[in-house]
């Protein structure tokens, strides 16, 4: 073997080594950034059962947890984002009153997804309705279409965002059911924060899940069920 060949070999070896060192961290970081890389499945349908009988009047724990988890200001001006809010309702004829949390109902047939011109509003296979902040052009048609007034428009530039929950000025946003937590096997922040355990989160499609069993045994209702949207959020005692 002559000198030239040796030089060529060592050059190739060094190049390969340098390339491996350069590419490896990218692969590793990609893994870190994406965590679970398997796709979500339609076998799962995430949902919630909210017990309005135990939901305490004046308690805002779920709303506060939502704001903290998603980096929302907690302001209640008409221009502030409110992914979750407490609604006090009173039966006009009977006078019976209730307090309950209201947020994106994660419909099976979401009107926001139907009307979105760019497909920024979309439903994941597991039933979670989300907004792709990169595709949203801020037309607000989804806000017009949502029967639950569940969506907010970001009216001001944002600072100090939660890296897990990127938001964007000029785009529309709503409850994501804490998708970043669900994908890590955790509960949504509101369900975890509720001291009365009024928010039961789980897989509606799994007949053995606690939520599915409970829905079979207690009377529950979907809000504006007349619209036929089949929301993933159900209310007990409504």
């Amino acid at each position, binding site marked *: 073997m002559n000198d030239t060949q040796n030089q060529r070999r060592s050059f190739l070896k060094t190049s390969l080594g340098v390339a491996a060192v350069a590419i490896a961290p990218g692969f590793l970081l990609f893994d870190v950034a994406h965590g679970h890389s398997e796709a979500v499945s339609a076998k799962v349908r995430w949902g919630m059962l909210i017990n309005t009988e135990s939901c305490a009047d004046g308690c805002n724990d779920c709303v506060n947890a939502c704001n903290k988890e998603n980096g929302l200001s907690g302001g*209640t001006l008409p221009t502030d984002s409110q992914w979750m809010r407490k609604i*006090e309702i009173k039966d006009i004829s009977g006078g019976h009153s209730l307090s309950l949390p209201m947020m994106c109902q994660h419909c099976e047939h979401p009107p926001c997804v139907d*009307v*979105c011109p760019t497909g920024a509003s979309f439903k994941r296979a597991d039933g979670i309705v989300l907004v792709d902040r990169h595709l949203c*052009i801020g037309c607000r048609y989804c806000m017009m279409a949502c029967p639950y007034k569940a969506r907010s428009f970001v009216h001001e530039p944002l600072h100090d965002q939660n890296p897990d929950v990127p938001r964007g000025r000029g785009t529309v946003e709503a409850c994501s059911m804490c998708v970043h937590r669900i994908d890590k096997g955790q509960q949504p922040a509101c369900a975890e924060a509720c001291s009365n355990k009024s928010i039961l989160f789980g897989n509606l499609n799994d007949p053995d899940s606690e939520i599915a069993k409970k829905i079979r045994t207690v009377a529950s209702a979907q809000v504006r069920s007349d619209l036929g949207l089949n929301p993933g959020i159900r209310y007990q005692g409504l």
Partner: protein
Amino acid sequence: MSTSTTSQLKLESTRFKNRLFYFMLAAGGLFVLAGMYAVHMMEEHGHIISGMNNQIVWGLPHVFAIFLIVAASGVLNVASIGSVFGKAIYKVRAPLAGLLSIAMLAGGLTVLMLDLGRPDRIIVAATNFNITSVFAWNIVLYSGLFSLVAVYLWTLMEKRMNIWSKTAGVAVFVWRFILTTGTGLIFAFLTARQAYGSAMLPPMFIILSFAWGMAVFHLVQTVMYAWNEQVLDSAIMDRKKHLLGIFVLASLYMVTVYHFTNMYFANRIGFEYFILRDGGIFPDLFWWGYVGLGNILPLILIYLPGLGRKKCALAASLAVVLGGFAFLYVFIIGGQAFPLSIFPGYEVSSSFGDGQISSYHPSIYEFMLGLSGLAIAFIITSISVRVLNFLPHDKPYIAD
């Protein structure tokens, strides 16, 4: 008067008109600049500087944009009556109608686009297309109308292409019906809101477009005739005036039926009380602005015998346009101000305005943006009519 004095006077008048033209163009340009400044401010600070919020998500810019887009479709009626139905006095007006359509569509779409939360991403609307979205359909309908009307103008204004003008005219005729249907459907598909979600809306918008388009056409035509020191044949004036009258009556009928059908549904009666009686500025604008100024006054001006022709037709057209703005303000803002019925049969309250009438105070930036749309339409029209031959050339009038 000697010939030289006459020509001197004519020269003076031409010079004055030239100056006036550039002055008006500059004024229009200033309005456009003001609009662009408003857009810059909204880019910088977000929509917080507008009067819009999470309850009233579409505001004054949408009133301007939708008026311009609906009128852009309606003004083509003049062209259709000429090209599709072969009426000579309308046919000579088809190029002007086509130009106005393009100008107003450009103005309206500019406003709509620049009011987006992220106007910089408008290209996404073309690259990512959601087939179920009526908004996405409208993007195709608007760009299609632009192209079709441009081709139609070409067939009208280029002698060699004249043979195709009827075909292009029919295509434009069909397209604009679909386009205004699409505009109506934007609201008709909002089933959860008491104000919208009605199959009446697409036909209602089509008829409204006839009246608004005709009124805009008449305003522009009157100004053009005055500028060129020409007099419109009184028989032609009468025909156009009466056509406007019929469109105004028809649109009032459609709006009446829309409100009556809403009253028929028990769950919408509250909304009707709000918009027609109890809602403060909304019933005021509806009755005084839309019904009074936009319908009754034009009908009196058109049909009451003994009133002067020219000024009455001009005033009637102006009133129809102003009434159109009043109608859209009530329809768009009032429709959102009334609370969504999330829990029918319950009294509702929350930190997010549930169960409450939402308030809206348009900011100066919204006015600036909206007016810039009108200014864009004005600039396109005035430059085009100056450099190209858009003035209708009537042959001696024969009824057809």
